[in-house]
């Protein structure tokens, strides 16, 4: 047993981080907010070229032949950078929907739970996923725009029943896991940003991070992030649905509470539109309802308890 990242996995993570630092830094993030969440198609193609969507496809099919662990690391970086778009849906559609794998087509999905569709105006196709991961095309002709909580994620709503072709009884493991990985990246970023601010912001003649009330807030952010990290990585390695659901539960909490605590450390500046903090919080709240809710995850955990005994 060696749970640490392998050299290849570390290199993959570094590569994705460098790519996103270069192509989706603070200015690009601002620009995306100013575009009200409309996607940068050129960037989407570049993500496709970098293997973002084809990562887990066999090499014979133009993929990288990697596994869920590697995909989790990539999506963690996407979460860190607040990269917008239906990344999970397009990743899952790769290999089924032509154009998804190389980034020429943006694929979005409807969630059965809320009948909500992300990035409807940019997406080339709307699908619903069956429990086995097969995408089915969905008639989205009656989509109605919703005022989205998250400035970087435009939302539309479809009339019910919104996914009759793909009545998924079980949540889709890979989708849940990759969303949890994005939450993990967001939680880690919020922790880093809070710590950075706490070191630099001086009040009462000293950096506020020197006050235990603030330092302990940051320490708890770290604890939630690292517990979620262990859960997400292990779930990715094992691919077990119960463990994936548990990972989502903990990663959702780490991301949402992390962003809230980060806001608290930033004080008034954290409450402004200008700051990045609200973008992490709003996306984390959105992801927490995507693919598996807290209530669903807790019920899956409870059922596992009942059946294990």
């Amino acid at each position, binding site marked *: *047993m*060696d*749970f*640490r*990242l*392998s050299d290849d*996995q570390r290199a993959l993570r570094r590569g994705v981080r460098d790519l996103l630092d270069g192509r989706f830094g603070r200015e690009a993030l601002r620009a995306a907010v100013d575009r009200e969440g409309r996607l940068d198609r050129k960037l989407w193609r570049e993500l496709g070229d970098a293997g973002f969507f084809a990562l887990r496809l066999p090499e014979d099919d133009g993929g990288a032949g990697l596994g869920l*662990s590697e995909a989790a690391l990539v999506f963690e970086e996407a979460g860190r950078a607040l990269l917008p778009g239906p990344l999970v849906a397009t990743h899952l559609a790769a290999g089924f929907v032509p154009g998804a794998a190389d980034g020429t087509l943006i694929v979005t999905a409807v969630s059965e739970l809320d009948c909500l569709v992300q990035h409807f105006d940019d997406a080339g196709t709307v699908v619903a996923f069956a429990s086995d991961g097969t995408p089915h095309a969905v008639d989205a002709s009656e989509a109605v725009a919703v005022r989205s909580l998250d400035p970087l994620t435009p939302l539309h709503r479809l009339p019910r029943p919104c996914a009759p072709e793909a009545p998924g009884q079980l949540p889709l493991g890979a989708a849940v896991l990759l969303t949890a990985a994005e939450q993990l990246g967001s939680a880690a970023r919020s*922790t880093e940003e809070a*710590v950075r601010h*706490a*070191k630099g912001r001086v009040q009462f003649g*000293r*950096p506020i*991070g*020197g*006050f*235990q009330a*603030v*330092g*302990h807030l*940051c*320490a*708890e952010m*770290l*604890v939630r992030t*690292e*517990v*979620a*990290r*262990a*859960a997400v*990585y*292990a779930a*990715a*390695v*094992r691919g077990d649905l119960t*463990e994936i*659901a*548990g*990972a989502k*539960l*903990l990663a959702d909490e780490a991301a949402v509470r992390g962003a809230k605590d980060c806001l608290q450390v930033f004080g008034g500046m954290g409450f402004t539109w200008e700051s990045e903090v609200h973008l992490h919080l709003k996306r984390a709240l959105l992801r927490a309802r995507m693919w598996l809710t807290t*209530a669903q*995850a*807790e*019920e*899956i*955990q*409870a*059922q*596992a*308890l*009942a059946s*294990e*005994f």
Partner: protein
Amino acid sequence: MDLAYTAAEEEFRARLRDWLADALPTLPPPPPAGDWPARRAYDSDWQRRLYDAGYGNVHRDASPTLRLIFLEETEKAGAPYVGANFVGLLHAGPTIAAEGTPEQRERWLGPILRGEAIWCQGFSEPEAGSDLASLRTKAVRDGDAYVVTGQKIWTSHAEVADWCELLVRTDPGAPRHRGITWLAMPMDAPGVTVRPLRTLAGSAEFAEVFLDEVRVPAANRVGEENDGWRVTMVTLSFERGTAFAGEVVACRRTLDEVAARARANGRWDDPVLRRGLGRLHAEFTALWRLVQWNVSEAAAIGGVPGTGGSVFKLRYSQARQELYDAAAEVLGPGALDLSVPWTRERLSSLSYTIAAGTSQIQRNILAERVLGLPKGR
């Protein structure tokens, strides 16, 4: 990211399992709670059996991964906990192994490993808890001995211990961390008085130890005079590392039992309670993964668990308290009945956020050493 155990690790597990299956049925019944001489005899007997089977020093000899397998399998099999041997095997022994002279290692390590000598820990004082370096028990050199006077507290198994790993102040004029010395004190020395300390759980697992001009031979000093702080810190991080790994396995089993009880008495139909138990399942699963993460890190850097131990300890101590709070919800009126084990465990769990470094101290450690924030106030 590899969670699979190697063939050699699985072989270790299989051999241990076989041995436990043979050994455990031959154990005498565990001693009644509070009977410390019987507890000592029981724990010593178990340690002797481990020693004879080649597992006597598994906590130090084996790789972190094998040690984790040992903790997991012994807990799953319901084997006795390290108990009265905790300080000898996990604190004093490792300190002597790392810092003692060949004569000292020869003299003390064998008896610890064979279950013949029980050690206790004389670190904390009434005025030196979280701020351990402010300890005031003084030792004055007199010929070939130190004369020790002061008071220690929270000393587990003091009543039945043969030896005490004692921190004393030998240079009151030096900076706090520089005037401390590590001594091995025989508990039967004249001037040592042990007074049991009753906890809120009603048990007397701790004691106060009063020291009145106790003569400790200078040959019992491990490390140099005034170098005791460093000597101690070499092994102190051990406690926060993987020492609780077996308990995570135990908590998962308890959680299963709590869920089964809830299903039997109808409380399971309460979605708030049921989902709370579900959340705890996710917590303890993640804590086990975190242990595996920490063990992997420890194996890579050569055996000493790093600050991951603080992350684990903070979350585990909280989760354990939440587990027994949930058990109380399931018990209903049984939550007020001290003859119910979970009710007693609920009280005992309150020590977890205090012992081995309070949660507040753990957060300081993370804030300062991991996050690099300025020293807090």
